[in-house]
């Protein structure tokens, strides 16, 4: 290759490792405009469309949540009817889980996994496009139900309420199609991630040098493959129960509603970690960069990710402590749920140790990562409280559980997602987001979130069940709900500030350059936004932090080379 000669001629020995990038992309002719977006198989374009679609659903789900909170702000609320309320509850939960948090992790994975492992695309680019469009169709099929009757049995669609005898309209069917389509989308995507990560890592990137975010996406993918078939089977059985006369979940025909709960939660609990683990991965990338320290206990964090995934397959019945089940079963699921607290605790302590004695740079991604740590701890602790099954008998299906799950999914996953968004936005757009708006958004979201959900623990402890469309004034829950609703508006405003920030910065943000944060991983090696083929030369990876090595090499070379510098991919 001509480039090798050029580099060798210019500098001998170590200097030969550093040379300007030769641009080889932009050679293929592409259709212009929207057609390019429709037909693309580029993992980065697909990733951006994933982000767009999932954030649209995030905002829709958020508006549903605000209507719910408005209805509950006062006793005997009259904003919506009970039927619409149940629809809102079902759609909010389903949207946030199946159309936002799970696929937005695929958005991050799609865009950044190939870049972080030094690959030029996903292993199966067309399959990748298929998983995006299946997601879109799933969302459209589901939201089409607002034009007839939305589903009304919650995101869990417990049988027999979800059976045709009680909810005969098509809402539940739309929900079933959503589970099937988004499930297929996730399965196809998961296989793609596994193959990509197993086979397409840069030379030198052994398993001990794989970035923790990539570890988390690999685990996410394996968990999806293990868990999704159970729910796919369950919703198919529900579909045949509803339309083809089977009685899998109907006791009058010899079926059992408990079967639904087992099948659903066998998927449903791993699903929680499917939503949480990639956020853990994002935090594990952001904290070392902004504390200017290597991640503390890399192997322990990677190992805890895997053990959490394994244990998450064994804890499903802690959602069913109040069902008529033998005590020995309850004890087993209590102990297994306790066990999962150990690797989770390890992660939290390792993150704290990463900040300890660092040199912490207060940029917006760090704010959200710290917000994640501060709130996720509460979700973890209430998780242990709920795992004590006699205590769960009091707390199950109350606002305590609502608060707990939002501390895990919002305080955990969503703060992680926002941290990742602020961290990687410069890479995706080439421009920095506004720090002032970012920090304003963080404080509004952080304070709003805690106002909304901290007090819901108390509402639950005082006996307020979840999923009720109103409550009497003499129940004593009015103050809790007023505070919670106020907080939810603040949270909503905070989210909108970030949306505005994205819209402004995408056009007018400061130009970021390749590596604005002095980060550790390979995605910062290429241009922002990266060219279609990502890397012209794939660098050889020598440590967990290849960018640190590259920056050091650039510094060591006597003549300062421009920002685009690259070691020779030895062995190529």
């Amino acid at each position, binding site marked *: 290759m001509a480039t090798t000669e050029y580099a060798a001629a210019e500098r001998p020995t170590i200097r030969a490792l550093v040379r300007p990038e030769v641009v080889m992309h932009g050679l293929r002719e592409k259709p212009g405009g929207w057609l390019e977006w429709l037909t693309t198989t580029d993992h980065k374009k697909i990733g951006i469309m994933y982000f767009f679609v999932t954030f649209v659903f995030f905002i829709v789900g958020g508006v549903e949540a605000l209507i719910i909170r408005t209805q509950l702000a006062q006793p005997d609320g009259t904003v919506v009817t*009970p039927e619409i309320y*149940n629809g809102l*509850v079902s759609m909010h939960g389903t949207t946030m889980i199946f159309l936002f948090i799970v696929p937005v992790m695929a958005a991050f994975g799609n865009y950044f996994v190939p870049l972080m492992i030094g690959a030029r695309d996903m292993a199966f680019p067309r399959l990748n496009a298929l998983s995006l469009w299946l997601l879109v169709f799933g969302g459209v099929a589901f939201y089409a139900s607002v034009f007839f009757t939305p589903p*009304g049995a*919650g995101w869990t669609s417990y049988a*027999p*309420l979800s059976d045709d005898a009680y909810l005969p309209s098509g809402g539940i069917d739309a929900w079933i199609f959503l589970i099937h389509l988004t499930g297929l989308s996730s399965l196809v995507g998961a296989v793609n991630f596994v193959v990509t990560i197993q086979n397409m890592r840069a030379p030198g990137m052994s398993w001990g040098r794989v970035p923790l975010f990539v570890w988390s996406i690999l685990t996410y993918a394996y968990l999806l493959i293990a868990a999704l078939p159970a729910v796919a089977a369950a919703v198919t059985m529900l579909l045949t129960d509803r339309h083809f006369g089977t009685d899998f979940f109907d*006791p009058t025909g010899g079926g059992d*509603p*408990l079967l639904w709960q087992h099948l659903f939660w066998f998927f449903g609990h791993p699903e929680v970690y499917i939503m949480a683990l990639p956020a853990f991965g994002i935090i594990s990338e952001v904290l070392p960069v902004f*504390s200017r*320290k*290597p*991640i*503390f*206990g*890399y*192997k*322990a964090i990677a190992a805890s990710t895997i053990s959490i995934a394994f244990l998450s397959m064994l804890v499903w019945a802690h959602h069913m402590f*109040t*069902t*008529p089940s033998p*005590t020995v079963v309850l004890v087993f699921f209590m102990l297994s749920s*306790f066990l999962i*607290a*150990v690797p989770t*605790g*390890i992660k*939290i*302590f390792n993150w704290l*140790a990463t*900040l*300890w*004695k*660092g*040199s*912490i*740079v207060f940029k917006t991604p760090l704010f959200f990562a*710290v917000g994640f*740590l501060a709130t996720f701890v*509460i979700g973890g*602790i209430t998780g*242990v*409280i709920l795992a*004590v099954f*006699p*205590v769960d*008998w*009091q*707390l*199950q*299906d109350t606002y305590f559980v609502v608060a707990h799950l939002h501390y895990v999914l919002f305080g955990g996953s969503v703060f992680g997602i926002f941290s990742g968004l602020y961290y990687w936005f410069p890479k995706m757009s080439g421009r920095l987001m506004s720090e002032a708006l970012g920090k304003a958004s963080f404080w509004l979201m952080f304070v709003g979130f805690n106002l909304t959900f901290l007090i819901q623990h108390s509402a639950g*402890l*005082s*006996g307020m*069940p*979840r*999923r*009720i469309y*109103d409550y009497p004034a003499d129940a004593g829950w009015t103050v809790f709900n007023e505070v919670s609703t106020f907080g939810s508006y603040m949270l909503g405003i905070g989210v909108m500030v970030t949306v505005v920030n994205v819209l402004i910065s995408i056009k007018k943000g400061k130009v970021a350059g390749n590596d604005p944060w002095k980060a550790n991983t390979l995605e910062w090696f290429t241009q922002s936004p990266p060219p279609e083929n990502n890397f012209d030369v794939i660098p050889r990876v020598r440590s967990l932090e290849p960018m640190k090595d590259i920056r050091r090499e650039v510094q060591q070379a006597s003549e300062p080379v421009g920002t685009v510098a690259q070691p020779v991919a030895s062995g190529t």
Partner: protein
Amino acid sequence: MTPATKWITAATERYDAAALRSRLSNRRLIASAALAAAMLSLLALAPGAMADVFTPESGGSPNADDIDTLYKIVLYVSIPIFLLVEGVLIWSLVKFRARRGGPQPVQIRGNSPLELGWTVGAAVILVVLAVVTFIYLPGIKNPPASGPDGLALGTQVASIDQPSPPKGSSKALEIGVNGQQYLWRYTYPGSGAYSYYKMVVPTNTTVVLKITSSDVAHSWWIPKLGGKADALPGHTNQTWFKISKEGTYKGQCAELCGEGHADMRASVQAVSPAKYQAFVANKQQELKAAQKALAAQRTAREESQ
């Protein structure tokens, strides 16, 4: 002061960076100390005035009280962990903020004894919690015998050659609870008496509930009388309570069961055993009267035909 001197003082203040920084960090220290003090005082006040806000409902039945105690133990174990994590977090953010000329970040990648330490520590705490749970479990799960002032139940042994009643079934009043969209129906033992929404029970008597559903999944829950028990069609679930004080205890269905879920309320009224017997007798009489009236109607209709 002339404008010139004013400018100079302002300038010296502005450029005395060290003093400024120490004053700022002092202020931050005071602010965080105040915050910590506020949080601690909130916790100190908690057990008194705001106990109900931080702990589950209790006070109606011993199982609810035991759950409350168990919850408090788990909570008290977790509060130091919470404070430790948040404390270290806040301390790190304040102490290790990047400053110009500040100390270099320490490039450590791990510490095996430390990591092993917190792994074992977390495991030990969870073992303790498991043991505590096993200690409290029997008191929460197993119905005790009724008190001496309770309702006299038919399990008393009349003669010495009669076999003693099987273990576990001694001296408890068994009431059937049936969930239906959107009401609760209660059947009282031995008499055919039943009621809706409001259950009447005798005080100082262990009441065992046999919980069923005739349509979708519901969940029986009166917070002050202990935990939930799901009512699932095709299954019979069980829970119990034993009330010592007369009074009414309120609750509602805790599992989404359809549009009327929020209105599926329930209450338990505890009365003296004598009043309970009168209530059941009254219900039986009503039942008989209703049956009689029905029979009379039927004969009247048949005669008129």
